[in-house]
């Protein structure tokens, strides 16, 4: 069965931008994990995950954000999340991700957030 999911990588003002599209579930999360890992290993620790075309996320997808955030912040970087549709945002929100991650409306806001707070202020 089709589980369409894709990741488009780009760079904006020195930030690594990962644009997610489709369905991020237990089947597709390993692809996302590999991508975040590869960016981290390449030293690209300032990452924006752009989700305006992400239709769905389950806990397997959320687990990827959780498993890298400490290492990335320890290396002076961060993951900022933007463009979440309401159905997707409710999943982040109910688990308390809003307190743990900078979640902003769109890519320009994510870029601005990196300028204001390279690592999330707690």
């Amino acid at each position: 069965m089709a589980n369409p999911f894709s990741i488009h990588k780009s760079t904006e003002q020195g930030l690594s931008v990962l644009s997610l599209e489709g369905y991020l579930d237990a089947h597709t999360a390993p692809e996302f994990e590999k991508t975040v890992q590869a960016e981290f290993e390449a030293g690209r620790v300032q990452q924006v995950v752009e989700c305006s075309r992400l239709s769905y996320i389950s806990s397997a997808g959320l687990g990827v954000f959780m498993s890298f955030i400490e290492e990335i912040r320890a290396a002076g970087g961060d993951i900022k999340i933007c463009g979440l549709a309401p159905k997707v945002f409710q999943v982040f929100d109910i688990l308390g991700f809003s307190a743990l991650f900078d979640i902003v409306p769109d890519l320009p806001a994510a870029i601005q957030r990196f300028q204001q707070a390279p690592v999330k202020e707690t």
Partner: protein
Amino acid sequence: MAWERTFSLHVPSSTENLSMIRDFVKSIGLQSGMGDMDVARLELAVDEACANVMEHAYDADDTKEVSIRAIVDDASVQIEVIDSGKGFDPAAVEQLKLEELVSAKRTGGLGMRLMKSFMDEVHYEMKPGVKNELKMVKWLHKTP
């Protein structure tokens, strides 16, 4: 006597079938008159339940089968997820805070947390190796 309808889906235990399961559950939710956000919650809760079975109860053995049964009446949608895998003790799943999970580099338990948050009732009946059953209920709050 209120009406009741039952729908069933049986799929091989492979995460590539999660999208088929979500489509099945989405159709049930829409037919029962749920709003978009509630349909999304139902889809996610069932996806989490089935992903747990596939990855943990069956240890990613795709020769096994996961069964999903939906019982719809005018007041609720009840979902049963049935497997014959190794089961687990739901009470033993630690409910750590998100920050603690991050520090411990663990992501386990998030799926169950989502099920409990998004469904009105969640019950387990475990007979490991025989029949493990997860029942979840979503009440329909229809406005007249």
